[in-house]
């Protein structure tokens, strides 16, 4: 076994162990229900932020309507579970597929164009979805919201631990899916679009195909995140999915570092926790988030992961015998 494989197995083992420990701690009540809830919610945020990172961070196409995709996933899953009594897993997956179809339909005309048209269209799309959700009262319950979505289990005392397991397994799946995809020839083709669309086209990469692929997959994952959200909270309201929600995901991606999976996961947890912690600020939160975005863009456009890389570089310079390699496709 090569050193690289050994390292991979070690990391996987460590993650598996810590996952089990956390599950145990939640089960025995050592991690209280409130903290478990934040962790689970962070997991959902990470899933959706990763999907946004796929299209915006790796493919380089700015999308501003992921709350809309999340809403479609959430309401479709809720409708399937409540009205057709579909079991959780297929309901979540079908919710993802429905969202992917929406993604495909929006992407098809927009992604042909160069520039920031996708940002404008997805921004409008997010708002349209929200307004539609308010008016489609039969399915969504309208502005009053949709109550009584059955959660992952009927056993209330098991609910925190099971929600956590569901969300974290999906999160792990998303991480594996995106990182394996990115570290393949298809992923390199996707990243080459971000780097230089014209050159990418000239090197035989079907740019439109890969933009569509990436955007549709992104919508699918965001829809799954939405489905988990619906089952986890048990209550949906169209105002949950406004532009600010889309902004939250964008902040996670940018702060973590565009095109960094580790950065998105780390920032997803930090920011979700911070959000709870900063509750006393109330609406001033709306000032802080954009401020964070501006400050990052001015001083550290590569985000958290850029900071980590800088520290590594500094260490490499100071202790030159340590060798560090950049991972393919990740920005230094």
């Amino acid at each position: 076994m090569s050193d690289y494989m050994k390292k991979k197995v070690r990391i996987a083992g460590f993650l598996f162990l810590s996952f089990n420990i956390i599950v145990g701690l939640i089960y025995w009540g050592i991690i209280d229900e409130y903290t478990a809830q934040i962790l689970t919610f962070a997991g959902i945020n990470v899933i959706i932020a990763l999907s946004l990172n796929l299209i915006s961070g790796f493919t380089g196409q700015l999308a501003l309507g992921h709350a809309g995709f999340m809403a479609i996933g959430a309401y479709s899953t809720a409708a399937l579970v409540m009205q057709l009594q579909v079991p959780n897993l297929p309901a979540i997956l079908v919710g993802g597929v429905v969202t992917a179809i929406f993604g495909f339909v929006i992407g098809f005309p927009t992604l042909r164009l160069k520039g920031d048209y996708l940002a404008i269209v997805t921004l409008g799309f997010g708002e349209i979805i929200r307004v539609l959700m308010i008016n489609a009262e039969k399915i969504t319950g309208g502005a009053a919201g949709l109550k009584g979505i059955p959660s992952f289990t009927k056993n209330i005392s098991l609910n925190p631990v099971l929600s956590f397991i569901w969300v974290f397994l999906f999160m792990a799946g998303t991480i594996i899916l995106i990182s394996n995809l990115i570290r393949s020839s298809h992923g390199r083709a996707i990243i080459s679009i971000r780097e230089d669309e014209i050159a990418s086209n000239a090197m035989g990469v079907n740019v439109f195909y890969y933009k569509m692929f990436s955007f549709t997959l992104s919508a699918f994952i965001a829809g799954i995140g939405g489905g988990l959200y619906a089952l986890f909270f048990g209550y949906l309201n169209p105002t949950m999915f406004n532009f600010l929600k889309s902004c939250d995901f964008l902040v996670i991606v940018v702060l973590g570092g565009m095109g960094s999976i580790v950065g998105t996961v780390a920032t997803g947890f930090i920011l979700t926790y911070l959000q709870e912690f900063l509750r006393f600020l109330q609406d001033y939160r709306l000032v802080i988030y954009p401020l964070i975005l501006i400050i990052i863009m001015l001083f550290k456009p590569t985000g958290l992961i850029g900071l980590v890389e800088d520290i590594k570089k500094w260490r490499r310079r100071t202790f030159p015998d340590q060798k560090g390699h950049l991972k393919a496709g990740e920005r230094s």
Partner: protein
Amino acid sequence: MTVLKLEEISIYFGGLKAVSSFNLQLEEGELMGLIGPNGAGKTTIFNMITGVYAPSKGDIYLRQKDSLKKIAGLKPYQITRLGMARTFQNIRLFKDLSVLDNVRIAHHFNIQYNALQSIFRTPGFYKEEAEAMEKALELLKLFNIDQKCDELAKNLPYGEQRKLEIARALATNPRLLLLDEPAAGMNPQETIDLMQLIQFIREKFNLTILLIEHDMNLVMGICERIVVLDYGQVIAEGNPEAIKHNPRVIKAYLGEEVEAGA
């Protein structure tokens, strides 16, 4: 055998006629130069051949086995897959990717495994990845930049970036290579090295080459046939010696002699 044929191609940008009724025939194994003053339409012709622009009038054909295939109107990636590769006037590398990745991306359309296979890491994935890696390193070795395969493209010195761009173009397995001002920004010694490199890859890969260049030493030194363009029209065509003494070429580059007393 004709590899590339342009038939009466013209392109208009609004009212501006950038290229008009341009004809060109490139024979297999030929090394042809396309020269002309700034704004003559050279890069526009390149962009039409490679599919960035569709010509307003006329047709472009590329050799496919036994026949000439019409390629005007195809997308750049489709044309690349038919065996034509290019470099850019102002280097267009994937700057924030490694040298190795730059070359592997150009190999991408030959990859057989699909996205699902890459997500589930099937044996086929590993096999093809290993092959792609080997091919890329082999190519980089040829250009003497294989030790730098982990470095980011933007961190290479200028000359090596030019080399990498050529290596990347070759990774698409072209039969026809289009070089847009490969010597731009190079000093005389680097230009000489580049000339040797072009000769070398031409023989090694059996290439037909069309190049745009301002550096006359390079053009006169390696091209067998030269086409001179001015205001979107061909003003002269022939071997380097004939071009050097062609009065219309001299006029286009240096302007007309002013008669004494006028």
